[in-house]
């Protein structure tokens, strides 16, 4: 099958499960796209209200405390504590379905010391509720910023260290189906 035929077949059989390359969910709102852009140059950037000092996440149009329109992205401290962790055995998305064939996918919710509750991929083993973690953002295989939580003792100070963690999780590459379209 040449490339043209392959693309025609892919259009005809528009099923994620048939694709050669499956990627994490790419879709974001305009605010989510801003979050990705703001997080490109730094380990973690969150919305900060210049009017009342509130730090918030997920990204929103206005400050949820004072309702003022003075939100800016600022580098944030990613220290926090795990509220609950889970392991997914089932997913609605082809990328994760393929990853799940190699084992469950760990996800957790974290209370950041700066206030917000975030949901993140869990990049370290043997972490449970109450354990201290560090959260950073990284670009995934869909070119979107996602949050990753690791054991608080893990070094995440350099871009190289963070990239290494993400690579070990296979988050930066698509999930491949050898004979896919």
């Amino acid at each position, binding site marked *: 099958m040449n490339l043209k035929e392959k693309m025609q077949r892919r259009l005809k059989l528009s099923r994620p499960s048939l694709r050669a390359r499956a990627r*994490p969910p790419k879709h974001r709102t305009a605010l*989510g796209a801003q979050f990705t852009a703001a997080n490109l140059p730094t380990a973690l950037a969150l919305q900060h209200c210049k009017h009342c000092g509130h730090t918030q996440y997920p990204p929103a149009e206005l400050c949820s405390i004072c309702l003022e329109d003075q939100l800016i992205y600022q580098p944030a401290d990613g220290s926090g504590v795990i509220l609950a962790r889970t*392991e*997914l055995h089932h997913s*609605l998305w082809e990328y*994760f379905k393929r990853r799940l064939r190699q084992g469950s996918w760990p996800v957790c919710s974290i209370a950041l010391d700066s206030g917000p509750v975030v*949901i993140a991929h869990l990049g370290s083993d043997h972490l449970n509720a109450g354990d201290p973690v560090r959260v950073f953002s990284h670009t995934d295989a869909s070119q979107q910023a996602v949050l990753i939580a690791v054991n608080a003792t893990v070094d995440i100070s350099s871009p190289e260290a963070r990239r290494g963690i993400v690579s070990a999780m296979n988050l930066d590459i698509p999930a491949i189906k050898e004979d896919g379209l």
Partner: protein
Amino acid sequence: MRNYEGIALVCPVSLGYAKQSSHGAAWYVGSVLRELIHSAGIAKSDVDGLAVSSFSLGVDSAIALTQHFGLSPRWIEQANMGGVSGIVALRKAARAVQCGETQIVACIGGDGAGHRSFEATAAHFSSWSIDASFPYGAGGPNAAFSLITRHYMEKYDAKREDFARIAVDQRYNANHYPKALLGHKRLSTQDYLQARPIAGPLHLFDCVMPCAGGEGFLIMSEARARTLKLPFVRLLAADELHNAHAKDAVQDRGGWTEYMPALYQRASVGPEDIDLLQTYDDYPVISMMQIEDMGFCEKGDGPKFVHETDMRFDHSGAATRKLPHNTCGGQLSCGQAGSAAGYLGLTETIRQLTHTAGSNQVPRARHGLVSGYGMVNYDRGLCSGAALLARGEA
């Protein structure tokens, strides 16, 4: 708060549960409307109020449906609030009828279930879920509720065996309710515990099966119900509170804690007087949370309570305390028909209290409590609602 005296709930309709369907939401909403009119013995033009809840109307709204169905209502409401839709619609419609703004309101929840439609709903549920929860494993509601369930289990030392009590008794009820999609299958505690894992502590029988379906009922004055010779149910009290306890890091309670004591007082009825309880059971832990928050036991005592309580519709279980719970099997056994699931507890309670339930009739049912919960905008369900209903004397 003024009471709801003189308001009647009549003609419960549940129809069309299907795991997958080629029909759209308008088919389900319209079919429920047709059945409501037939069972009430009224003309379509007599329906002058319409409250609709649906996730799958797409570009259409309740207004578009008036043209689809040839209706000309003077009062209209669209309550798209998932599991609390039915109670929100009921409260608004009851006040509108009480104030004379409308005479007969059709309250309808309906949703289709096309191929891969659940995936689309989960992927685009809210802006916060799009940006901040769905990308993390794309587990949909299972992911959010596995975090809530694990937290509850760790905080209150709950076990899977405790949640099994809820799922197993509900399946028994569904085994006696012919419309339930899973009613033909038995479920033992063993089956529940050995089910395949889905997310963290959640296994297959903790999760609802998304499906298509429609639910609805009519609200009118008690006088009108008597004239039409319709068996009716009265609304003793109802309340709602949303985004309550926002400072709780993980949800283990809902808005009910703030208004249930006053609600019972307004109704002059207490938890001990309730003959049947319908909670919003998208996951067993959420039913347990409602049982606690609505005063059936203390916070954290849910696991003990469900072991000491027979939740079967016919009181046939071993436990001595009897509280028929989700008497048609709830969503865990009927299937979750989108927004219609937010009406399921109400339609079932109206059937029970008018003694028209048939094969799953609760004996001597007089008082029924229905609660609604819903809308996981990000990490927790934001809505809470409750309605206390009583059998109307003919």
